[in-house]
């Protein structure tokens, strides 16, 4: 298959050239941050590092880390590196785990971010002949804005649908022959199911590709979506703190996501010691924004656990690849010695046709961890037969065992019975910590 690139020179640059480029940008960026962000200057001073100590990417490890806690403490302007009159946009996280994160963009920041999304669309086979349906939420969420901008840059006819109103999504998709769908994987699966219910066969659906991200999803879910919609489904990665979607994207090989490393310098560290780990080892992903003007984060700890690889890719891109993140460090539980991420439970539930309304209860009885998962079932799933309910519990437990390697006890419960605080369900109750 002929390969297309949005910015071929960068995307296929040799590793040594790329590292030279990254080094030049890093030196400039550290200076910019030190001079304009007192919050980070203090962190550097505390560590005894000066901008002059940074000569290239080999000195990156000398810089202090930034964490989500720093972002919250510095809210809203503490990490801003440009005067507000040079900023043209903010985007924000949902703020569900605490104070929201607000990221600022200059026009150049928006431009480079959109380039990153354009690379993702082209890697998924997009050209100016395509009709690109953006069904990520528009607004403060970065999903809609990022892919919308990328789609414009590629020259696709862009359908700025935002999320929800599935009947209207389907109407526009079929009436205007949308060829690329951008949304969360769970919404893609939902659109697929709805199309199926309405009698559409995969060959009747005009789509050829989908770019799905912003939440964890499995290979099984990918296969399901690809079959129902008759498309190739590509992963995309990003976070509001660094810009939004497009930090990394999948190519035709579908074996991990190429990081746009000319803009985002990636490291993998040991989450406990902060030590940098060699390529191929599993650890926490850390990003340094090399080009961001308004909100340039240096060594930002994403809490995402993954692996980096420089293995040669059949698509011709030389950009380093990251594996699909396995979960976030701050959510991770260790049960019977096994790492368990709530996101993995969520993935299983979505795959098995449940809503992701669940609660994990961990306790220690006779020195052994107990692991229970309560899952809300819907009125459609409930049956009057005890044997059916027990079979559903058993099959969910076995799907979780496959994903996690350890066996939970699953309890199905009635809808809306899982305790919620401030409208959001409490996902984990770890009673071991109370002892």
């Amino acid at each position, binding site marked *: 298959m002929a390969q297309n690139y949005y910015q071929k020179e960068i995307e296929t640059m040799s590793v040594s050239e790329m590292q030279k480029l990254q080094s030049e940008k890093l030196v400039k960026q550290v200076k910019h941050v030190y001079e304009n962000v007192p919050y980070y200057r203090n962190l550097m001073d505390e560590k005894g590092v000066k901008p002059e100590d940074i000569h290239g990417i080999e000195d990156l490890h000398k810089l202090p880390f930034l964490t989500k806690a720093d972002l919250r403490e510095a809210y809203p302007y503490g990490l801003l590196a440009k005067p507000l009159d040079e900023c043209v946009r903010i985007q924000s996280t949902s703020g569900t785990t605490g104070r929201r994160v607000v990221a600022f963009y200059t026009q150049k920041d928006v431009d480079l971010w959109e380039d990153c999304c354009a690379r993702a669309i082209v890697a998924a086979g997009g050209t100016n002949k395509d009709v690109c349906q953006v069904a990520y939420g528009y607004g403060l969420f970065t999903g809609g804005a990022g892919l919308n901008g990328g789609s414009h840059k590629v020259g696709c006819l862009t359908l700025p649908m935002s999320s929800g109103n599935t009947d209207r999504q389907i109407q526009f998709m079929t009436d205007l022959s949308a060829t690329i769908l951008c949304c969360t994987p769970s919404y893609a699966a939902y659109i697929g199911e709805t199309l199926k219910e309405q009698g559409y066969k995969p060959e009747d659906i005009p789509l050829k590709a989908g770019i799905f991200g912003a939440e964890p999803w499995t290979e099984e879910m990918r296969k399901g979506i690809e079959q129902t919609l008759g498309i190739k489904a590509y992963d995309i990665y990003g976070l509001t703190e660094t810009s939004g979607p497009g930090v990394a994207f999948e190519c035709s090989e579908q074996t991990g996501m190429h990081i746009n490393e000319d803009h985002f310098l990636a490291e993998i560290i040991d989450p406990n010691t902060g030590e940098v780990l060699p390529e191929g080892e599993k650890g926490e992903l850390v990003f340094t924004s090399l080009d961001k003007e308004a909100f340039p984060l240096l060594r930002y700890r994403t809490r995402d656990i993954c692996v980096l690889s420089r293995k040669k890719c059949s698509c011709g891109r030389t950009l380093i690849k990251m594996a699909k993140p396995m979960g976030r460090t701050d959510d991770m539980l260790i049960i019977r010695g096994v790492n368990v991420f709530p996101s993995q439970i969520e993935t299983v539930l979505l795959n098995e046709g449940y809503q992701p309304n669940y609660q994990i209860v961990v306790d220690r009885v006779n020195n052994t961890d107990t692991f229970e998962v309560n899952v809300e079932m819907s009125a459609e799933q409930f049956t009057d*037969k005890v044997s059916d309910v027990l079979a559903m519990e058993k099959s969910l437990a076995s799907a979780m065992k496959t994903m996690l390697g350890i066996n939970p006890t699953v309890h199905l419960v009635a809808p809306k019975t899982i305790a919620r605080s401030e409208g959001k369900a409490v996902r984990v109750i770890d009673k071991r910590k109370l002892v």
Partner: protein
Amino acid sequence: MAIKQLTVFVPNRKGTIASVTDILAKHQVNIRALSIAETEDFGILRLIVNDETTAEKVLEEQGYLIKVVEVVGVKIGDEPGKLTGALDVLDKADINVEYLYAFMTRTEKHAYVVLRVESNQAAESALTSAGYKLITEADVNKL
């Protein structure tokens, strides 16, 4: 022909059945028959009531997981061996009974048996051809 059974999912905890029956009582819903299947964690209440529309609505409003299913009701004589006779009929017709429960009526010399089977139609036709009388919604309402 089939009659409607209200099925309610409840956690296996003290007081949960009373909270269901209390809601029904407050809305003048009369319970004709009640059976419970329970596991260590949860119970499934199966109810035949005089007004399942109201029962379903008020329990749903209170957040209960409800399912209304159609079940077969059959009249049998109030004598030893009569239930076995009815079950034999189904067995011969190769109809598997998922669960059943029975209740007495105040006025008639009959017991009513509620049967949950895979195909209501097959069970109904097997029973009627063997001379059994089926219970209708009207019968339930008269109780």
